[in-house]
């Protein structure tokens, strides 16, 4: 058995919805049935075989090769198995993910991990805006699972996030953790402006204090917090730099957003 591989023949002119290509929906299908799957592209439907060279037979491991930023909804609703994307992806990667792993070797577009409830999304490159955030009309953003970004991520990371962890090895854009309800966002690089804007609960764990911190966050001083070693140890098995962090417990704590109850916190590593 080898990984079921979809190699993009040419970069499409219009966006393509790849939501039908998940381990769940392809389980048990023969290759000709997979080749005949219709994929929405603009106002047309394209057969999978028109877009991709399809090889391999193990639908629990899907590889998308030669990928580009026009391919949306990769890993839509995935519950188990793995998808590896060699190249960039469009928007909504791992949309409503429920389990398994999705790995993007390039960059991910907007709304990666949106509606995610469980599983692991790894973006080796950069992630776009609204990473793990709520779509307009959604009651909340990401509600479980782990997102790891090897590069940087755009604005509104974890907007309305409910649960789970977003780990950014690079920098984070403006409004990081905005309107957050709970969960953890950790950033090893810098964060942009207005981080924690309107956050209700949850933890933003930063390696350095933001240049401008909202006046709606109150400085609670430097403390030893014993949950931090547990949190760091829980990242041990993950790929990337977060797995290599040494357990630490000393942080400066800023509580806020006081315009929204003030039960959230921005923690900045301190030694």
């Amino acid at each position, binding site marked *: 058995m080898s990984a079921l591989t979809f190699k993009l023949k040419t970069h499409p002119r219009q966006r393509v919805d790849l939501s039908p290509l998940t381990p769940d929906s392809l389980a048990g299908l023969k290759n000709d049935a997979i080749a005949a799957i219709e994929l929405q592209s603009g106002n047309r439907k394209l057969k999978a075989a028109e877009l991709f060279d399809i090889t391999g037979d193990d639908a629990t491991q899907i590889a998308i090769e030669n990928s580009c930023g026009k391919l949306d909804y990769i890993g839509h609703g995935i519950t188990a198995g793995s998808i590896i994307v060699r190249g960039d992806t469009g928007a909504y990667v791992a949309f409503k993910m429920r389990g398994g792993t999705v790995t993007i070797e390039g960059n991910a577009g907007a709304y990666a991990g949106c509606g995610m409830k469980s599983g692991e999304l790894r973006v080796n490159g950069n992630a776009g805006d609204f990473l793990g955030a709520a779509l307009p009309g959604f009651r909340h953003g990401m509600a479980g699972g782990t997102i790891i970004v090897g590069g940087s991520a755009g604005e509104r990371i974890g907007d309305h996030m409910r649960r789970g962890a977003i780990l950014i090895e690079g920098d984070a854009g403006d409004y990081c953790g905005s309107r957050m309800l709970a969960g953890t966002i950790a950033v090893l690089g810098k964060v942009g402006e207005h981080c924690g804007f309107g956050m209700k609960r949850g933890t933003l764990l930063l390696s350095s204090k933001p240049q401008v911190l909202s006046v709606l966050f109150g400085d609670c001083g430097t403390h030893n917090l014993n*949950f931090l070693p547990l949190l760091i*140890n829980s990242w041990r098995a993950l790929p990337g730099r977060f797995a290599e962090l040494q357990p630490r417990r000393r942080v400066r704590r800023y509580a806020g957003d006081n315009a929204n109850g003030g039960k959230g916190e921005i923690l900045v590593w301190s030694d």
Partner: protein
Amino acid sequence: MIINGVLIDDTFAEAFGMKATRILITAQNLKWAYHSANAVTGFATSVIACGCEAGIERKLAPEETPDGRPGASVLLFAVSTKELSKQLERRVGQCVLTSPTSAVFAGISEGEKLPLGKNLRYFGDGFQISKLIAGRRYWRVPVMDGEFLAEETTGMAKAVGGGNFLILGDTQEQVLTACEAAIEAMRKLPNVIMPFPGGVVRSGSKVGSKYKALMASTNDAFCPTLRGATRSELSEGIETVLEIVIDGLTDVDVRAAMREGIAAVCEFGTEGGIRRITAGNYGGKLGQFQFHLREIMQEAAQ
């Protein structure tokens, strides 16, 4: 059966099914972890009046604890899930939450869940914070030295309480010395505690009393000062009888602890003033478990 001159009675210890849990208490250093663990296991010698039987199972090195600090592992045993739950909450609430730098974690992850930080979190008056880490929920409760961290629940196990053996010997000093050695050997084993002070009990009881209000009273058959005044079990020269009671997570653990303890006592032999080993039972009608002394020591010999 005679080991090193010590007679092993052909009798058995009768033990009961209990409910148990394990919690891990950590602190800034071992001293403070033990202050907390000692308090949690205080006044927990017998379910008769303490609500539960509890003891420190062993000390924990920093690399063995969830938060990387030194700690102690504590076992608690009670007669019912309800009582265990009540005792756990009271004891952790009064003895761990209150203890500087402490944190408490589940020591058993399987089985029915008992609330650990689940209700204690309300001490935080709305400032408590929940963190779900690797599928387990923890509560961060703000306290005056920082934060009290408590795992939401701990697992419960079916367990065995009341394994025991009695050591009969020449003098108080000699029997107590042998008991100390036994306890030292038994404390090296996992999954067991000896709940009485120093692991040793001197007030063995029988069922019933001449006083209607009392369910149990002194075991006069084993009281050396009554040898000539009652139907005594003691032969001439026996001046002291001490008992070691063992609670364990399984009958195998209790059996192993009894074997280790009896062997340690028998090392002293008649030269050390030890004459006889026996065990407490109720005729085998009350308890679910029977630990036959000779069987256990036979296994040891093999």
